[in-house]
């Protein structure tokens, strides 16, 4: 039997991806529907010399992984709606202090305690704007377990490359559904390791001075270079500053390092787009229904395709504008009240031809649900 072939939950595929990417430290707090991530890592991490800790709350979990990251470890936490809300202040800290870390949010219905055991995609905007102040963030997602695995590896790679928190925005259906996963061989997927400074002892090290390529080499706590890390605006040594130029330059740096790389960060898949008159844009578990419907309608001769987004932030505007240029209508399929739809409307040539096919009742949107709207748009009645 091939050990790399597995039949797993999405949460487990995420764990496998994280371990493959080099996860060494996890801090978490039990919350449905992400708990399996913590449970699995409490067993798996110590087996490979990594460390797991169950903290006293969601806030502490986020803070603990930031602390661990500063010692040179690859780190992750996992949560869902209410926990994601609690983590926001510390996510902002990781943005400001440029600490690589990965935050898994297996989305459930909200606001508040909401619908803990049912699916939703209502945290898309929270992933973008949950913490206060101008900032940039990377948020990734996937619609099958093989992709959950590889996008999790991507998340760790991007966290290291851009020294930033990366959000993995899964949902309850993806987290709990079981399907096939083949764990790739070692070195099959590229891994980005921590970039450490090559400067020796006694040489002035600037933790916040970007190299020419924009990357900032780090120095582990405990190594030769002693520097300051703060959530305040800071200079290139990490010391607090309210000098207007320092403040402005740092904020631009934090946003630009991600927004200027949107083309590098963007991840998407396309199905039957070449000649599509009708394009469905979707992501996560709802993309499965969109793809299923597209295959069915194609078999009946309808020119319909799917653009599946795997990176939600920074928003892949250019790709969407280009792919949707020739479409008669664009249908955004998601399980919220139009969070991605509004982004799509803002970037396509004809926003009036963008429609929303959604479900917000805790049930997975079905191909039939989408088909109903499609028929109306096509002028074929309900």
């Amino acid at each position, binding site marked *: 039997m091939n050990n790399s072939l597995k039949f797993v939950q999405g949460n487990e595929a995420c764990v496998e991806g994280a371990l493959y990417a080099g996860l060494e430290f996890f801090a978490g707090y039990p919350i449905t529907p992400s708990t399996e991530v913590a449970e699995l890592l409490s067993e798996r991490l110590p087996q490979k010399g990594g460390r797991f800790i169950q903290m*006293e709350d969601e806030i502490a979990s986020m803070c603990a992984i930031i602390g661990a*990251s500063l010692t040179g470890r690859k780190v992750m936490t996992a949560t869902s709606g209410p926990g994601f809300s609690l983590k926001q202040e510390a996510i902002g800290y990781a943005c400001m202090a440029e600490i690589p870390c990965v935050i898994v949010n297996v989305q459930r219905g909200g606001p508040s305690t909401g619908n803990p055991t049912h699916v939703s995609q209502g945290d898309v905007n929270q992933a973008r704007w949950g913490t206060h102040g101008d900032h940039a963030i990377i948020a990734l997602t996937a619609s099958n377990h093989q992709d959950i695995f590889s996008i999790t590896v991507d998340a760790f790679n991007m966290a290291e490359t851009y020294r930033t928190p990366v959000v993995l925005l899964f949902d309850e259906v993806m987290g709990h559904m079981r399907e096939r996963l083949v764990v790739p061989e070692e070195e099959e997927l590229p891994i980005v390791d921590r970039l450490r400074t090559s400067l020796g002892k006694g040489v002035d090290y600037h933790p916040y001075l970007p190299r020419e390529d924009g990357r900032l080499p780090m120095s582990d706590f405990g190594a030769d270079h002693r520097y300051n890390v703060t959530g305040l605006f800071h200079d290139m040594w990490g010391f607090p500053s309210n000098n207007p130029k320092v403040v402005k330059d740092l904020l631009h740096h934090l946003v630009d390092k991600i927004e200027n790389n949107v083309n590098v960060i963007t991840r998407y898949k396309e199905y039957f787009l070449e000649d599509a008159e009708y394009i469905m844009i979707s992501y996560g578990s709802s993309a499965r229904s969109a793809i299923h419907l597209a295959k069915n309608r194609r078999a009946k001769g309808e020119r319909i395709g799917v653009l599946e987004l795997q990176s939600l932030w920074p928003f892949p505007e250019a790709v969407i504008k280009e792919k949707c240029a020739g479409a008669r209508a664009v249908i955004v399929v998601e399980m919220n009240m139009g969070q991605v739809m509004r982004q799509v409307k803002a970037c396509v040539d004809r926003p009036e031809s963008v429609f929303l096919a959604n479900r917000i009742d805790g049930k997975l949107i079905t191909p039939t649900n989408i088909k109903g709207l499609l028929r109306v748009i096509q002028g074929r009645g309900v």
Partner: protein
Amino acid sequence: MPIKDYLRERFFPHMWCPGCGHGTVLNTLLHAVEQLGLDKKEIVMTSGIGCSARISGYVDFHSLHTLHGRALAFATGVKLSKPELTLLVPMGDGDALAIGGNHFIHAARRNIDITAIVMNNRIYGMTGGQFSPLSGLGKKATTAPYRTIDNNFDVVALSIAAGASFVARTTTYHVQEAIDIFKKAIGHKGFSVVEILTQCPTHYGRKNKEGDAVEMLAKYKSDTARIGSKALEKDPSLLGRGIFVNRDFPEYCEEYEKIMQVAMKEVA
């Protein structure tokens, strides 16, 4: 090594008010570090937000200035990830025991090898003098213009109940005692709590008519006594100083090492 070699001199003079006790906390803490002969690169100082938290900017260690109340949660991540590092976590009273109260009791419960220093000036100084969970009853503050009706925590009793394996109290008047207590707290394997009373003449002293820094320091002398002393026996209303608890108890990171050994064996 001279004490000044532990400081980032370019940031002096410090930002604390004239007469503030926090400089004395820094001074006594660095003397303790120096006397223990610790290497600067072995030490991580993690702090939260407030007047107290600025202490981490002045020391030439790895310094992590974090979020209000969360210093111990960050420190827990650093320590478990790299147990060979020495973690010093100075916090204000509001920082440690209001917004950070949950992290405080749970770090104590785990008995993780961190030295927590509660710099207790009984007030929120940086925001201009609001009452804290350590102000106590009947005090004046900008958010208690009539008087406080909030009871205060007893840091020592709370720490012991929560599971800290080293618990001590001292003041900025008793500097030799403070150095000695800091040395023992840092040397102790497990979660150590040192409550150090530190005067805030600007806000607490002024609002509560306790006089200037000198008068406040004199009060630390007159109103406290060493535990086990005749003075305390004679007058139990005095506040006890000294080491209340110093016990051997399994330390969190060492216990986790054992878990790792078991887990690795299972796979092999």
